[in-house]
């Protein structure tokens, strides 16, 4: 292999590398969104993560909520974090997960203070954190330190023909340079799950993957339903995808040609000893839920291919939007970062298209803002597994 590729990133206290330098304001629960938004309004440079849950969850669903909130604060794109909760015991659990990385984190409970005093207390600290963060410099590190994720949305047949295989080439390059790439969309692998299983390194991981896949489908079927009518989505059907099998065979084109050497269930963390890691993560196929889970497992940049024009973003990580559908590239140009419609028209080769995705990813890593960042697509959507208590 040739020379290693260098990028410029923020090396955090625990050695992880971020490509953005945010101060996150994280509500433990739905009730704390107002205070969180109050801080974000007062203090420039803070990023609020409002969401709808965090009360009376239990078991694995509660563990997943802590995993997502803590993981988001621990993400290497975050320089420091503030957690605001209606009470402090659960807020401290989230803060403890963030503190493990060595970055600054503070908790502010609302009970006993009210929203206004909480906003004041948290804003004073947030102001300091933003000023501290502003002194952090990008330094030169290897591409191997980057954790990336991939997912497609509002896919159509152009995804499987062009944008997904081109992204697969970029994925191969990241892995060949020692980087980490995560993919998921468990239900959306239906019809191609055997191909994914064949790409998995060994029998133990393959069994783990098939168990996760089977449990997901069994859960759906236990509701007396299947996913026909939801998968493919109405947008997929408009774009020419007829069945889940066709959608799945297009979906997996973006995995590239390297072996899958890591399989993670909801609560599993990325292995710490990584070099060239391609990781399946159990996720829903809903765009914002999947990107949110990837970010909480450490992804600092997401490559998102679309056919009909999904516009998803995330508050903490840049989402690079890639399409090969010429109509979408033209009609929704403000959302598209990489236009590969020339590949669909066979005016460029698949290799050239893959290189275009890869080079754009490097630019984004080095600081260029994506369309989703500039257009404020800040979707933060924790996956909820159960009803509330």
């Amino acid at each position, binding site marked *: 292999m040739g020379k290693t590729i260098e990028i410029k990133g923020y090396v955090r206290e625990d050695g992880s590398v971020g490509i953005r330098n945010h101060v996150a304001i994280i509500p433990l629960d739905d009730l704390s969104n107002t205070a969180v938004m109050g801080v974000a309004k007062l203090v420039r440079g803070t990023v609020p993560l409002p969401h709808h849950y965090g009360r009376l969850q239990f078991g694995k669903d509660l563990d997943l909520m802590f995993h997502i909130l803590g993981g988001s604060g621990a993400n290497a794109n975050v320089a420091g974090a503030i957690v605001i909760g209606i009470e402090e015991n659960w807020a401290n659990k989230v803060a403890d997960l963030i503190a493990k990385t060595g970055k600054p984190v503070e908790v502010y409970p609302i009970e006993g203070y009210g929203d206004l005093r909480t906003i004041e207390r948290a804003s004073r600290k947030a102001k300091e954190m933003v000023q501290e963060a502003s002194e952090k410099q990008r330094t030169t590190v290897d591409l191997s330190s980057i954790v990336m994720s991939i997912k497609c949305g509002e896919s159509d047949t152009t995804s*499987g*023909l062009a944008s997904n295989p081109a992204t697969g080439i970029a994925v191969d390059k990241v892995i060949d340079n020692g980087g980490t790439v995560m993919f998921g969309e468990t239900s959306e692998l239906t019809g191609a799950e055997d191909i994914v299983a064949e790409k998995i390194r060994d029998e133990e991981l393959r069994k783990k993957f098939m168990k996760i896949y089977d449990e997901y489908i069994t859960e759906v079927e236990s509701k007396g339903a299947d996913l026909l009518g939801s998968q493919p989505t109405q947008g997929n059907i408009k774009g020419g995808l*007829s*069945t889940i099998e066709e959608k799945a065979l297009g979906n997996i084109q973006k995995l590239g040609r390297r072996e899958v050497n890591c399989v993670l269930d909801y609560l599993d963390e990325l292995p710490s000893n990584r070099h060239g890691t391609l990781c399946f993560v159990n996720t829903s196929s809903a765009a914002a839920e999947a990107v949110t889970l990837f970010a909480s497992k450490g992804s600092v940049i997401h490559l998102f291919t679309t*056919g009909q024009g999904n516009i998803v973003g995330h508050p903490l990580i840049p989402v690079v939007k890639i399409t090969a559908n*010429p109509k979408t590239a033209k009609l929704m140009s403000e959302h598209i970062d990489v236009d590969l419609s020339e590949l669909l028209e*066979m005016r460029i080769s698949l290799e050239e298209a893959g290189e275009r995705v890869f080079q754009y990813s490097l630019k984004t890593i080095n600081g260029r803002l994506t369309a989703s960042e500039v257009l404020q697509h800040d979707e933060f959507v924790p996956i909820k597994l159960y009803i509330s208590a």
Partner: protein
Amino acid sequence: MGKGLIHSKDDDVCVVVADVKQGEEVVCSSIEDPRYTVVIKAINDIPLGHKIALRKIGEGNDVKKYGRSIGVATKEISLGEHVHVHNIKSKRWGKR
């Protein structure tokens, strides 16, 4: 003349890469080997990204794309016909 792409040589369908009108001829090229082309006449309007049948497919038969079954024909499909949810269905879901 319309244009289309074929994933795998033994596929039953070709994806059109621009809107095609009824009666228009479509040149379908293989993405594996661009020298391999098939010309078919569309018997319906076919929108960008939708599939056109490269051969007659009997009711109940598999429909192949990517060299694999993407479902079965729910009625007989003619050469040059639009192939979509009105004439194929998943083998995995929709049994209930």
